[in-house]
């Protein structure tokens, strides 16, 4: 007789946004895994049509309160390509600095309050704070430093307002950035301590042959620029993104799922992908720390994403400190331009992975088409595939323990569900 078993996680906790999970088992075999993203579609791509291109950074920043800088960065780089302009060289490190602030803020939140509780059997960051107050306080301090960078450079920590097409609206005074140096030097030490704490966690034995996808740059750890790199050896211009990757809609999710166009295969973006492709480009202290922690590549255990994240926080502090010390405000805040019709695309590395934007603009500088592919959309199908491979190891457990173990695996990818639900594809059936 067929035995049906359905395990449901009504709402996955400690992730950004609203999603659930359904697991279908027949006669002891997994027959279906659905990462159900039921957060309402947010329709940003349609919202952008007809808007002035200057509005794109601030509109797209509203997609996420945790990683607004990522949206601003992908938007301005894509639009600058469409306009045929290049920002003055002194502004480039400032954009990286702003991004460092976001990585610090986002990664430390996930590491300490969202993900670390799983390794201690705690139901929440609050519960972990009771048993590990020093570690949580350190995490809060690190996050605050990330927010301070966003405030100084972006105007405010949540949805910064200072990023402009062509540069920035206002450049910080030298004294504003110099005032952060001592705190960031202490923050770098604290970030190293946090990474050592995280690396000592006990990680479940689970590895997958991931097709990692990230930006890659010969001279720097990827943030704002680089080529698309895949685990099967492709090194592509970002302009080829839409030829290589495609999105599909599934019935159980309001977010699209991205796959490799040629094979239909899933892939993984995010800290593990970056670390695997770009370990040599880590800043010296971060690279030495990765060596010390035994964080070798290839690293294909998704639970160790928390270590990759913690090492990236060290990198972000190290790079930020260098930029803060070297900063001289000797540039115009932004390059001027005349609107012209064109198309541009760009990918940058959001905390959770590759974030692709593409725009078409008309002669008046109005947006006529926008495409946004966020990291969680790209990881969603891979998360489901990982769950299908992981479940046979734990199916003998009671339903509630299976559900909890699956939630823990999902959290290891740091999904941002709010980001992923920006699109709704409507199929019209006319009779």
């Amino acid at each position, binding site marked *: 007789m067929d035995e049906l078993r359905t395990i449901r996680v009504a709402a996955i906790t400690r992730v950004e946004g609203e999603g659930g999970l359904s697991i279908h088992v027949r006669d002891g075999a997994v027959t279906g895994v659905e990462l159900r993203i039921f957060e309402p579609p947010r329709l940003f791509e349609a919202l952008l049509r007809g808007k002035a291109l200057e509005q794109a950074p601030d509109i797209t920043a509203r997609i996420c*309160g945790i990683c607004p800088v990522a949206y601003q960065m992908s938007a301005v780089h894509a639009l600058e390509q469409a306009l045929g302009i290049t920002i003055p060289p002194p502004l480039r490190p400032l954009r990286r600095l702003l991004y460092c602030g976001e990585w610090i803020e986002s990664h430390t939140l996930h590491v300490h309050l969202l993900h670390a509780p799983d390794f201690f059997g705690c139901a929440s960051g609050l519960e972990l704070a009771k048993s590990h107050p020093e570690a949580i306080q350190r995490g809060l301090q690190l996050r605050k430093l990330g927010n301070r960078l966003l405030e100084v450079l972006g105007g405010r920590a949540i949805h910064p307002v200072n990023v402009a097409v062509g540069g920035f609206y206002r450049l910080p005074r030298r004294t504003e950035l110099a005032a952060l140096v001592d705190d960031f030097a202490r923050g770098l030490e604290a970030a190293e301590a946090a990474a050592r704490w995280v690396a000592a966690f006990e990680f479940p034995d689970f590895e997958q042959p991931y097709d990692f996808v990230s930006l890659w740059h010969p001279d720097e750890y990827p943030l704002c620029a680089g080529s698309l790199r895949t685990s099967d050896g492709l090194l592509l211009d970002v302009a080829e993104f839409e030829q290589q990757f495609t999105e599909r809609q599934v019935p159980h999710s309001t977010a699209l799922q991205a796959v490799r166009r040629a094979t239909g295969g899933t892939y993984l973006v995010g800290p593990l992908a970056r670390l695997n492709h770009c370990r040599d480009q880590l800043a010296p202290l971060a690279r030495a720390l990765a060596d010390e922690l035994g964080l070798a590549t290839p690293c294909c255990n998704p639970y160790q994403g928390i270590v990759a994240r913690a090492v990236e926080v060290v990198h972000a502090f190290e790079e930020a400190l260098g930029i803060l010390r070297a900063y001289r405000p000797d540039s115009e805040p932004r390059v001027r331009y005349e609107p012209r019709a064109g198309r541009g695309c760009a990918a940058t590395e959001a905390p959770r992975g590759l974030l692709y934007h593409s725009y078409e603009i008309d002669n008046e500088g109005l947006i006529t088409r926008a495409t946004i592919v966020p990291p969680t959309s790209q990881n969603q199908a891979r998360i489901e595939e990982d769950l299908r491979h992981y479940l046979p190891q734990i199916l003998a457990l009671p339903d509630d323990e299976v559900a909890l173990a699956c939630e823990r695996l999902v959290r290891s990818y740091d999904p941002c569900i709010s980001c992923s639900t920006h699109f709704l594809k409507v199929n019209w059936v006319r009779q």
Partner: protein
Amino acid sequence: MNSASVLLVGIGSAHGDDRVGWSVAAAVAQRAGDQVRVRTAAAPADLLDWLAGVDRLHLCDAWLTSEPGGQLTQWSFPDPAIESAGFGSTHSLSLPAALRLAAELGTLPREVILWGVSIERAEPGAPLSPRVAAAVPRIAERICEVLEYA
């Protein structure tokens, strides 16, 4: 009153009546002088850095409710009513969560009083509404009374 152990924090933003926490904090600072340490915060999580040595923590925040603007409500933390009153946050730790976290970290002061000021709306960049602005002196006076005589 030991001024070093009393902290009043006004929580708010620059958007309409959501700034009432900041306005009340400024009015208390003007009225109480050095007797009360006064700070303003945009995010409740900021509190977590300011609690060392604090014995009495008073917080003033806007409270979006159906009541007319400018009404004052007082809670003592912990109180389930605070959790359900709508002091949430879509982007960061909510005020109740920040206080619970401080409790778990062992840094929560002996006395925690939350003063909620009812507001009806918070428009981006707008000034305080006349009704809420008119209530600020009375609210500051009430808080000073409690701080002085409790």
